[in-house]
Protein backbone atom coordinates (compact mmCIF):
# COMPACT_ATOMS: atom_id res chain seq x y z
CA UNK A 1 0.00 0.00 0.00
CA UNK A 2 2.60 2.65 0.93
CA UNK A 3 4.46 2.05 -2.33
CA UNK A 4 1.25 2.00 -4.35
CA UNK A 5 0.05 5.34 -3.04
CA UNK A 6 2.70 7.56 -4.66
CA UNK A 7 2.00 5.86 -7.99
CA UNK A 8 -1.74 6.22 -7.57
CA UNK A 9 -1.43 9.87 -6.63
CA UNK A 10 0.92 10.62 -9.54
CA UNK A 11 -1.42 8.88 -12.00
CA UNK A 12 -4.47 10.68 -10.69
CA UNK A 13 -2.64 13.99 -10.70
CA UNK A 14 -1.85 13.45 -14.40
CA UNK A 15 -5.55 12.83 -15.05
CA UNK A 16 -6.53 15.90 -13.03
CA UNK A 17 -4.17 18.28 -14.84
CA UNK A 18 -5.30 17.35 -18.35
CA UNK A 19 -8.95 17.33 -17.44
CA UNK A 20 -8.68 20.80 -15.90
CA UNK A 21 -6.71 22.01 -18.94
CA UNK A 22 -9.41 20.89 -21.36
CA UNK A 23 -12.15 22.37 -19.19
CA UNK A 24 -10.06 25.54 -19.04
CA UNK A 25 -10.53 25.91 -22.79
CA UNK A 26 -14.26 25.57 -22.25
CA UNK A 27 -14.27 28.17 -19.49
CA UNK A 28 -12.25 30.71 -21.45
CA UNK A 29 -14.13 30.37 -24.76
CA UNK A 30 -17.19 32.48 -23.87
CA UNK A 31 -14.94 35.37 -22.80
CA UNK A 32 -11.95 35.12 -25.13
CA UNK A 33 -13.18 32.88 -27.94
CA UNK A 34 -11.64 29.63 -29.07
CA UNK A 35 -8.98 31.02 -31.37
CA UNK A 36 -5.71 29.16 -31.63
CA UNK A 37 -4.00 31.70 -29.36
CA UNK A 38 -6.50 31.09 -26.58
CA UNK A 39 -5.46 27.45 -26.57
CA UNK A 40 -1.86 28.59 -26.88
CA UNK A 41 -2.26 30.76 -23.77
CA UNK A 42 -3.80 27.94 -21.75
CA UNK A 43 -1.15 25.41 -22.72
CA UNK A 44 1.63 27.94 -22.05
CA UNK A 45 0.40 28.61 -18.53
CA UNK A 46 -0.05 24.92 -17.77
CA UNK A 47 3.44 24.09 -19.01
CA UNK A 48 4.98 27.02 -17.15
CA UNK A 49 3.20 26.14 -13.91
CA UNK A 50 4.13 22.47 -14.25
CA UNK A 51 7.79 23.30 -14.88
CA UNK A 52 8.01 25.51 -11.80
CA UNK A 53 6.05 22.91 -9.83
CA UNK A 54 8.62 20.24 -10.73
CA UNK A 55 11.35 22.49 -9.43
CA UNK A 56 9.52 23.23 -6.19
CA UNK A 57 8.45 19.60 -5.66
CA UNK A 58 12.04 18.41 -6.06
CA UNK A 59 13.27 21.01 -3.60
CA UNK A 60 10.62 20.26 -1.02
CA UNK A 61 11.29 16.52 -1.26
CA UNK A 62 14.60 17.05 0.54
CA UNK A 63 12.86 18.15 3.72
CA UNK A 64 11.47 15.16 5.66
CA UNK A 65 9.41 13.73 2.80
CA UNK A 66 6.34 11.61 3.53
CA UNK A 67 3.33 10.12 1.80
CA UNK A 68 1.20 12.30 4.06
CA UNK A 69 2.73 15.43 2.62
CA UNK A 70 2.31 14.08 -0.90
CA UNK A 71 -1.39 13.66 -0.15
CA UNK A 72 -1.49 17.19 1.20
CA UNK A 73 -0.01 18.57 -2.05
CA UNK A 74 -2.71 16.77 -4.03
CA UNK A 75 -5.43 18.18 -1.79
CA UNK A 76 -4.03 21.72 -2.00
CA UNK A 77 -3.96 21.48 -5.81
CA UNK A 78 -7.61 20.44 -5.74
CA UNK A 79 -8.73 23.08 -3.26
CA UNK A 80 -7.11 25.82 -5.35
CA UNK A 81 -9.63 25.03 -8.11
CA UNK A 82 -12.48 26.23 -5.86
CA UNK A 83 -12.16 29.93 -6.85
CA UNK A 84 -12.55 28.87 -10.50
CA UNK A 85 -15.66 26.92 -9.58
CA UNK A 86 -17.22 29.81 -7.70
CA UNK A 87 -16.03 32.94 -9.48
CA UNK A 88 -14.62 31.72 -12.83
CA UNK A 89 -16.94 33.70 -15.09
CA UNK A 90 -16.79 36.88 -12.99
CA UNK A 91 -12.99 36.76 -12.85
CA UNK A 92 -12.62 36.17 -16.57
CA UNK A 93 -15.02 38.96 -17.48
CA UNK A 94 -13.15 41.32 -15.15
CA UNK A 95 -9.88 40.36 -16.87
CA UNK A 96 -11.43 40.91 -20.31
CA UNK A 97 -12.59 44.38 -19.26
CA UNK A 98 -9.03 45.28 -18.22
CA UNK A 99 -7.19 43.46 -21.02
CA UNK A 100 -9.38 43.47 -24.12
CA UNK A 101 -6.78 41.81 -26.40
CA UNK A 102 -7.86 38.15 -26.29
CA UNK A 103 -4.27 36.92 -26.51
CA UNK A 104 -3.02 38.64 -23.37
CA UNK A 105 -6.43 38.50 -21.75
CA UNK A 106 -6.52 34.73 -22.01
CA UNK A 107 -2.90 34.53 -20.85
CA UNK A 108 -3.74 36.55 -17.73
CA UNK A 109 -7.08 34.78 -17.24
CA UNK A 110 -5.56 31.31 -17.34
CA UNK A 111 -2.76 32.44 -15.03
CA UNK A 112 -5.28 33.60 -12.43
CA UNK A 113 -7.44 30.50 -12.67
CA UNK A 114 -5.01 27.70 -13.38
CA UNK A 115 -1.48 28.60 -12.34
CA UNK A 116 -1.80 27.59 -8.70
CA UNK A 117 -3.54 24.21 -9.15
CA UNK A 118 -1.16 23.25 -11.93
CA UNK A 119 1.90 24.38 -9.97
CA UNK A 120 0.96 22.11 -7.06
CA UNK A 121 0.14 19.27 -9.44
CA UNK A 122 3.62 19.64 -10.91
CA UNK A 123 5.15 19.14 -7.46
CA UNK A 124 3.72 15.63 -7.23
CA UNK A 125 5.97 13.69 -9.59
CA UNK A 126 9.45 14.67 -8.33
CA UNK A 127 8.20 14.40 -4.78
CA UNK A 128 6.91 10.89 -5.46
CA UNK A 129 10.26 9.90 -7.01
CA UNK A 130 11.92 10.74 -3.71
CA UNK A 131 9.46 8.51 -1.84
CA UNK A 132 9.90 5.58 -4.21
CA UNK A 133 13.63 5.48 -4.80
CA UNK A 134 15.53 3.31 -2.32
CA UNK A 135 18.88 3.14 -4.06
CA UNK A 136 20.61 4.47 -7.11
CA UNK A 137 20.52 1.21 -9.04
CA UNK A 138 16.71 1.17 -9.23
CA UNK A 139 16.17 4.92 -9.39
CA UNK A 140 15.76 4.99 -13.16
CA UNK A 141 13.23 2.20 -13.08
CA UNK A 142 11.12 3.98 -10.51
CA UNK A 143 11.36 7.26 -12.35
CA UNK A 144 10.32 5.49 -15.58
CA UNK A 145 7.37 3.83 -13.92
CA UNK A 146 6.35 7.14 -12.43
CA UNK A 147 6.50 8.93 -15.77
CA UNK A 148 4.47 6.08 -17.20
CA UNK A 149 1.77 6.27 -14.57
CA UNK A 150 1.54 10.04 -14.61
CA UNK A 151 1.50 10.44 -18.38
CA UNK A 152 -0.88 7.51 -18.79
CA UNK A 153 -3.15 9.27 -16.31
CA UNK A 154 -2.90 12.41 -18.45
CA UNK A 155 -3.89 10.46 -21.55
CA UNK A 156 -6.87 8.97 -19.75
CA UNK A 157 -7.91 12.37 -18.41
CA UNK A 158 -7.72 13.89 -21.86
CA UNK A 159 -9.71 11.16 -23.55
CA UNK A 160 -12.40 10.72 -20.93
CA UNK A 161 -12.98 14.45 -20.55
CA UNK A 162 -13.14 15.35 -24.23
CA UNK A 163 -15.01 12.27 -25.46
CA UNK A 164 -17.41 11.54 -22.62
CA UNK A 165 -17.47 13.71 -19.51
CA UNK A 166 -18.45 16.93 -21.31
CA UNK A 167 -21.26 15.03 -23.01
CA UNK A 168 -22.94 14.13 -19.73
CA UNK A 169 -21.93 16.77 -17.19
CA UNK A 170 -21.59 20.50 -16.81
CA UNK A 171 -18.08 21.92 -16.57
CA UNK A 172 -18.48 22.77 -12.89
CA UNK A 173 -19.86 19.32 -12.11
CA UNK A 174 -16.77 17.74 -13.65
CA UNK A 175 -14.48 20.12 -11.76
CA UNK A 176 -16.36 19.30 -8.56
CA UNK A 177 -15.94 15.58 -9.20
CA UNK A 178 -12.21 15.95 -9.84
CA UNK A 179 -11.88 17.96 -6.66
CA UNK A 180 -13.72 15.35 -4.60
CA UNK A 181 -11.56 12.49 -5.89
CA UNK A 182 -8.35 14.45 -5.21
CA UNK A 183 -9.41 15.27 -1.69
CA UNK A 184 -10.45 11.66 -1.04
CA UNK A 185 -7.07 10.41 -2.29
CA UNK A 186 -5.26 13.05 -0.27
CA UNK A 187 -7.16 11.93 2.80
CA UNK A 188 -6.26 8.29 2.19
CA UNK A 189 -2.59 9.30 1.95
CA UNK A 190 -2.87 11.39 5.08
CA UNK A 191 -4.38 8.53 7.08
CA UNK A 192 -2.52 5.64 5.45
CA UNK A 193 0.89 7.27 5.18
CA UNK A 194 0.98 8.46 8.77
CA UNK A 195 3.85 6.28 9.92
CA UNK A 196 6.02 7.18 6.89
Amino acid at each position, binding site marked *: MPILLPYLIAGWSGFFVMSVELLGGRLLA*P*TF*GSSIYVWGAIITIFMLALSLGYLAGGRWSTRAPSVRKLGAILAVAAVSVIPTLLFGVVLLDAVAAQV*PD*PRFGSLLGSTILFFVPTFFSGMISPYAVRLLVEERATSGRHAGQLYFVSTFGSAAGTLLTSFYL*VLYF*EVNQILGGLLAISIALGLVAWLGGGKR
Partner: protein
Amino acid sequence: MKQLQRWLLCLAIACALAPAANAQKLIHSERSLYREVLVYEDGPVRCMCFTRNCRIGRQTCMNMQAPNRFVMNYTKMMMASLFMNPRPRSILIIGLGGGTLPRALSQVLPGATIDVVEIDPAVVKVAERFFAFHTSDKVRVETADGRVFVKRAQREQRQYDLVMLDAFDHEYIPEHLLTREFLEEVSSLLSPQGVLAANTFSSSRLYDHESTTYAAVFGTFYNLKRDNRVILAGKGGLPSKQQIAANAAGLERAFAPFDIDVSNYVAMFSTRPDWDPQARILTDQYSPANLLNLRE
Protein backbone atom coordinates in the same frame (compact mmCIF):
# COMPACT_ATOMS: atom_id res chain seq x y z
CA MET B 1 -4.16 -13.93 -64.95
CA LYS B 2 -3.84 -12.53 -61.46
CA GLN B 3 -1.57 -9.86 -62.87
CA LEU B 4 -4.09 -8.87 -65.51
CA GLN B 5 -6.86 -8.67 -62.94
CA ARG B 6 -4.83 -6.38 -60.80
CA TRP B 7 -3.97 -4.24 -63.78
CA LEU B 8 -7.60 -3.92 -64.80
CA LEU B 9 -8.56 -3.03 -61.28
CA CYS B 10 -5.97 -0.26 -61.24
CA LEU B 11 -7.28 1.02 -64.54
CA ALA B 12 -10.83 1.03 -63.25
CA ILE B 13 -9.81 2.99 -60.15
CA ALA B 14 -7.85 5.46 -62.26
CA CYS B 15 -10.85 5.98 -64.54
CA ALA B 16 -13.16 6.48 -61.59
CA LEU B 17 -10.84 9.05 -60.04
CA ALA B 18 -9.77 10.84 -63.18
CA PRO B 19 -12.87 12.93 -63.95
CA ALA B 20 -13.17 14.10 -60.34
CA ALA B 21 -9.54 15.14 -60.31
CA ASN B 22 -9.80 16.89 -63.66
CA ALA B 23 -13.08 18.70 -63.13
CA GLN B 24 -11.89 20.56 -60.04
CA LYS B 25 -8.84 22.73 -60.40
CA LEU B 26 -7.01 24.14 -57.42
CA ILE B 27 -6.27 27.77 -58.21
CA HIS B 28 -5.11 29.07 -54.87
CA SER B 29 -4.10 27.92 -51.43
CA GLU B 30 -3.76 30.33 -48.54
CA ARG B 31 -2.10 29.24 -45.33
CA SER B 32 -3.87 30.36 -42.19
CA LEU B 33 -3.68 30.11 -38.42
CA TYR B 34 -6.48 27.60 -38.48
CA ARG B 35 -6.44 25.65 -41.69
CA GLU B 36 -5.60 25.86 -45.32
CA VAL B 37 -8.01 28.03 -47.26
CA LEU B 38 -8.33 26.50 -50.72
CA VAL B 39 -9.90 27.93 -53.85
CA TYR B 40 -11.11 25.48 -56.50
CA GLU B 41 -12.58 26.12 -59.89
CA ASP B 42 -14.94 23.76 -61.66
CA GLY B 43 -15.94 25.29 -65.00
CA PRO B 44 -17.34 28.73 -64.23
CA VAL B 45 -17.96 27.91 -60.57
CA ARG B 46 -15.32 28.96 -58.06
CA CYS B 47 -15.49 27.64 -54.50
CA MET B 48 -13.73 28.23 -51.20
CA CYS B 49 -13.03 25.03 -49.28
CA PHE B 50 -11.19 24.05 -46.12
CA THR B 51 -10.55 20.46 -47.19
CA ARG B 52 -8.73 18.96 -50.19
CA ASN B 53 -10.99 18.66 -53.23
CA CYS B 54 -13.78 20.13 -51.10
CA ARG B 55 -14.31 16.70 -49.64
CA ILE B 56 -16.14 17.93 -46.55
CA GLY B 57 -18.35 20.62 -47.97
CA ARG B 58 -17.84 23.92 -49.72
CA GLN B 59 -17.72 27.11 -47.69
CA THR B 60 -18.91 29.33 -50.47
CA CYS B 61 -19.18 29.31 -54.25
CA MET B 62 -19.47 31.93 -56.95
CA ASN B 63 -20.39 31.59 -60.60
CA MET B 64 -17.73 33.69 -62.33
CA GLN B 65 -19.90 34.17 -65.41
CA ALA B 66 -22.82 35.40 -63.31
CA PRO B 67 -21.25 36.58 -60.05
CA ASN B 68 -24.53 37.87 -58.65
CA ARG B 69 -26.41 34.60 -58.90
CA PHE B 70 -26.27 32.60 -55.69
CA VAL B 71 -24.83 29.15 -56.19
CA MET B 72 -25.61 27.80 -52.76
CA ASN B 73 -29.06 27.30 -51.43
CA TYR B 74 -28.44 28.22 -47.82
CA THR B 75 -27.42 31.78 -48.73
CA LYS B 76 -30.84 32.20 -50.33
CA MET B 77 -32.44 30.91 -47.14
CA MET B 78 -30.40 33.44 -45.15
CA MET B 79 -31.56 36.27 -47.41
CA ALA B 80 -35.13 35.26 -46.54
CA SER B 81 -34.47 36.91 -43.16
CA LEU B 82 -35.36 40.17 -44.94
CA PHE B 83 -38.93 38.85 -45.22
CA MET B 84 -39.11 39.30 -41.44
CA ASN B 85 -37.81 42.88 -41.46
CA PRO B 86 -37.28 44.15 -45.02
CA ARG B 87 -35.30 47.29 -44.24
CA PRO B 88 -32.62 46.70 -41.61
CA ARG B 89 -30.32 49.69 -41.29
CA SER B 90 -27.57 48.03 -39.30
CA ILE B 91 -26.45 44.46 -39.89
CA LEU B 92 -23.96 42.20 -38.15
CA ILE B 93 -22.65 39.12 -39.94
CA ILE B 94 -20.65 36.56 -37.95
CA GLY B 95 -18.56 34.49 -40.37
CA LEU B 96 -17.50 35.95 -43.72
CA GLY B 97 -16.88 32.97 -46.00
CA GLY B 98 -16.59 34.34 -49.51
CA GLY B 99 -18.60 37.41 -48.59
CA THR B 100 -21.67 36.43 -50.60
CA LEU B 101 -24.09 37.70 -47.97
CA PRO B 102 -22.53 41.13 -47.29
CA ARG B 103 -22.14 41.65 -51.04
CA ALA B 104 -25.78 40.90 -51.76
CA LEU B 105 -27.06 42.82 -48.72
CA SER B 106 -25.16 45.97 -49.62
CA GLN B 107 -26.70 45.76 -53.11
CA VAL B 108 -30.24 45.37 -51.82
CA LEU B 109 -29.80 47.85 -48.97
CA PRO B 110 -27.24 50.44 -50.10
CA GLY B 111 -27.91 52.61 -47.04
CA ALA B 112 -27.32 49.88 -44.46
CA THR B 113 -24.14 49.62 -42.44
CA ILE B 114 -22.75 46.09 -42.36
CA ASP B 115 -20.27 44.83 -39.76
CA VAL B 116 -18.66 41.51 -40.56
CA VAL B 117 -16.70 39.50 -37.98
CA GLU B 118 -14.39 36.82 -39.29
CA ILE B 119 -11.99 34.87 -37.12
CA ASP B 120 -9.55 33.95 -39.87
CA PRO B 121 -7.59 36.74 -41.61
CA ALA B 122 -6.74 34.34 -44.45
CA VAL B 123 -10.45 33.97 -45.25
CA VAL B 124 -10.78 37.76 -45.52
CA LYS B 125 -7.79 37.88 -47.87
CA VAL B 126 -9.15 35.12 -50.10
CA ALA B 127 -12.66 36.65 -50.15
CA GLU B 128 -11.23 39.95 -51.33
CA ARG B 129 -8.91 38.44 -53.93
CA PHE B 130 -11.05 35.67 -55.36
CA PHE B 131 -14.67 36.41 -54.47
CA ALA B 132 -15.04 40.12 -55.22
CA PHE B 133 -15.64 41.05 -51.62
CA HIS B 134 -14.82 44.69 -50.80
CA THR B 135 -14.99 46.75 -47.68
CA SER B 136 -16.24 50.35 -47.86
CA ASP B 137 -17.44 53.02 -45.48
CA LYS B 138 -20.66 51.00 -45.18
CA VAL B 139 -19.15 47.50 -45.08
CA ARG B 140 -16.55 46.91 -42.39
CA VAL B 141 -14.79 43.71 -41.53
CA GLU B 142 -13.08 42.88 -38.27
CA THR B 143 -10.86 39.92 -37.52
CA ALA B 144 -12.07 38.53 -34.22
CA ASP B 145 -13.85 35.65 -32.57
CA GLY B 146 -17.61 36.12 -32.93
CA ARG B 147 -18.31 35.77 -29.25
CA VAL B 148 -15.60 38.25 -28.27
CA PHE B 149 -17.02 40.75 -30.78
CA VAL B 150 -20.56 40.27 -29.50
CA LYS B 151 -19.52 40.78 -25.87
CA ARG B 152 -17.68 43.96 -26.78
CA ALA B 153 -20.61 45.27 -28.85
CA GLN B 154 -22.81 44.56 -25.85
CA ARG B 155 -20.55 46.62 -23.58
CA GLU B 156 -20.68 49.44 -26.12
CA GLN B 157 -24.48 49.09 -26.24
CA ARG B 158 -24.54 48.73 -30.00
CA GLN B 159 -27.79 47.72 -31.70
CA TYR B 160 -28.38 45.77 -34.88
CA ASP B 161 -31.59 45.28 -36.86
CA LEU B 162 -30.31 42.03 -38.32
CA VAL B 163 -27.70 39.60 -37.02
CA MET B 164 -26.59 36.76 -39.29
CA LEU B 165 -24.78 33.84 -37.76
CA ASP B 166 -22.88 31.93 -40.42
CA ALA B 167 -19.91 30.45 -38.58
CA PHE B 168 -20.70 26.75 -38.60
CA ASP B 169 -19.67 24.13 -41.09
CA HIS B 170 -20.02 20.43 -41.67
CA GLU B 171 -17.00 19.38 -39.71
CA TYR B 172 -16.82 21.84 -36.84
CA ILE B 173 -19.18 23.95 -34.77
CA PRO B 174 -17.69 26.64 -32.52
CA GLU B 175 -19.44 25.43 -29.39
CA HIS B 176 -19.36 28.78 -27.60
CA LEU B 177 -21.57 30.15 -30.42
CA LEU B 178 -24.31 27.66 -29.68
CA THR B 179 -25.22 28.24 -26.05
CA ARG B 180 -28.08 29.95 -24.26
CA GLU B 181 -25.72 32.61 -22.88
CA PHE B 182 -24.43 33.46 -26.36
CA LEU B 183 -27.92 33.75 -27.80
CA GLU B 184 -28.91 35.99 -24.89
CA GLU B 185 -25.93 38.21 -25.67
CA VAL B 186 -26.94 38.33 -29.35
CA SER B 187 -30.53 39.05 -28.38
CA SER B 188 -29.39 42.02 -26.29
CA LEU B 189 -27.75 43.47 -29.44
CA LEU B 190 -30.98 43.29 -31.43
CA SER B 191 -33.11 46.39 -31.85
CA PRO B 192 -36.78 46.04 -30.81
CA GLN B 193 -37.78 44.61 -34.21
CA GLY B 194 -34.39 42.94 -34.76
CA VAL B 195 -33.98 39.56 -36.40
CA LEU B 196 -31.44 36.78 -35.90
CA ALA B 197 -30.76 34.50 -38.87
CA ALA B 198 -28.63 31.46 -38.08
CA ASN B 199 -27.30 29.03 -40.63
CA THR B 200 -26.73 25.72 -38.89
CA PHE B 201 -25.76 22.27 -39.98
CA SER B 202 -27.44 20.10 -37.50
CA SER B 203 -29.24 17.09 -38.81
CA SER B 204 -28.22 14.75 -36.03
CA ARG B 205 -29.20 14.63 -32.39
CA LEU B 206 -27.82 18.14 -32.07
CA TYR B 207 -30.94 19.30 -33.93
CA ASP B 208 -33.07 18.73 -30.83
CA HIS B 209 -30.65 20.47 -28.47
CA GLU B 210 -30.17 23.40 -30.82
CA SER B 211 -33.93 23.80 -31.14
CA THR B 212 -34.66 23.83 -27.42
CA THR B 213 -31.77 26.26 -26.86
CA TYR B 214 -33.11 28.74 -29.44
CA ALA B 215 -36.63 28.28 -28.12
CA ALA B 216 -35.44 29.00 -24.56
CA VAL B 217 -34.09 32.39 -25.63
CA PHE B 218 -36.41 33.48 -28.45
CA GLY B 219 -39.60 31.49 -27.96
CA THR B 220 -41.20 30.47 -31.24
CA PHE B 221 -39.02 30.89 -34.32
CA TYR B 222 -39.27 30.28 -38.04
CA ASN B 223 -37.47 27.15 -39.14
CA LEU B 224 -36.36 26.83 -42.77
CA LYS B 225 -35.12 23.42 -43.79
CA ARG B 226 -33.62 21.98 -46.90
CA ASP B 227 -30.08 20.57 -46.97
CA ASN B 228 -29.23 23.11 -44.33
CA ARG B 229 -31.25 24.53 -41.56
CA VAL B 230 -31.77 28.26 -41.15
CA ILE B 231 -33.35 29.57 -37.97
CA LEU B 232 -35.06 32.97 -38.13
CA ALA B 233 -35.84 34.41 -34.72
CA GLY B 234 -37.30 37.78 -33.84
CA LYS B 235 -36.71 39.88 -30.79
CA GLY B 236 -40.20 41.39 -30.79
CA GLY B 237 -42.12 38.25 -31.71
CA LEU B 238 -42.66 36.87 -35.20
CA PRO B 239 -44.47 38.54 -38.09
CA SER B 240 -47.41 36.53 -39.44
CA LYS B 241 -47.10 34.38 -42.55
CA GLN B 242 -49.21 36.97 -44.41
CA GLN B 243 -46.78 39.69 -43.41
CA ILE B 244 -43.88 37.46 -44.52
CA ALA B 245 -45.52 36.92 -47.90
CA ALA B 246 -46.23 40.64 -48.30
CA ASN B 247 -42.63 41.59 -47.42
CA ALA B 248 -41.36 38.90 -49.80
CA ALA B 249 -43.49 40.23 -52.64
CA GLY B 250 -41.97 43.65 -52.06
CA LEU B 251 -38.48 42.16 -52.41
CA GLU B 252 -39.22 40.03 -55.47
CA ARG B 253 -37.50 42.36 -57.94
CA ALA B 254 -34.59 43.16 -55.66
CA PHE B 255 -33.91 39.44 -55.18
CA ALA B 256 -34.27 38.42 -58.83
CA PRO B 257 -30.61 39.12 -59.76
CA PHE B 258 -29.51 36.61 -57.11
CA ASP B 259 -31.68 33.92 -58.66
CA ILE B 260 -33.93 33.83 -55.60
CA ASP B 261 -37.53 32.94 -56.35
CA VAL B 262 -39.11 34.45 -53.26
CA SER B 263 -42.28 32.34 -53.27
CA ASN B 264 -40.19 29.17 -52.92
CA TYR B 265 -38.71 30.52 -49.74
CA VAL B 266 -41.91 31.90 -48.29
CA ALA B 267 -43.30 28.37 -48.52
CA MET B 268 -40.45 27.11 -46.34
CA PHE B 269 -41.34 29.27 -43.33
CA SER B 270 -42.54 26.97 -40.60
CA THR B 271 -43.03 27.27 -36.85
CA ARG B 272 -43.95 23.62 -36.35
CA PRO B 273 -41.75 22.10 -33.63
CA ASP B 274 -40.28 18.90 -35.07
CA TRP B 275 -37.83 18.22 -32.27
CA ASP B 276 -37.75 16.57 -28.88
CA PRO B 277 -38.85 19.34 -26.45
CA GLN B 278 -37.11 17.52 -23.59
CA ALA B 279 -33.65 17.82 -25.17
CA ARG B 280 -31.19 19.37 -22.75
CA ILE B 281 -30.53 23.08 -23.39
CA LEU B 282 -26.95 23.95 -24.38
CA THR B 283 -25.20 26.37 -22.03
CA ASP B 284 -21.67 27.65 -21.43
CA GLN B 285 -21.45 24.91 -18.82
CA TYR B 286 -22.86 22.19 -21.05
CA SER B 287 -21.94 22.58 -24.70
CA PRO B 288 -20.89 19.30 -26.34
CA ALA B 289 -22.29 20.41 -29.71
CA ASN B 290 -19.71 18.58 -31.79
CA LEU B 291 -20.11 15.35 -29.85
CA LEU B 292 -23.89 15.56 -30.18
CA ASN B 293 -23.50 16.22 -33.88
CA LEU B 294 -21.83 12.82 -34.28
CA ARG B 295 -24.87 11.01 -32.94
CA GLU B 296 -27.75 9.90 -35.07
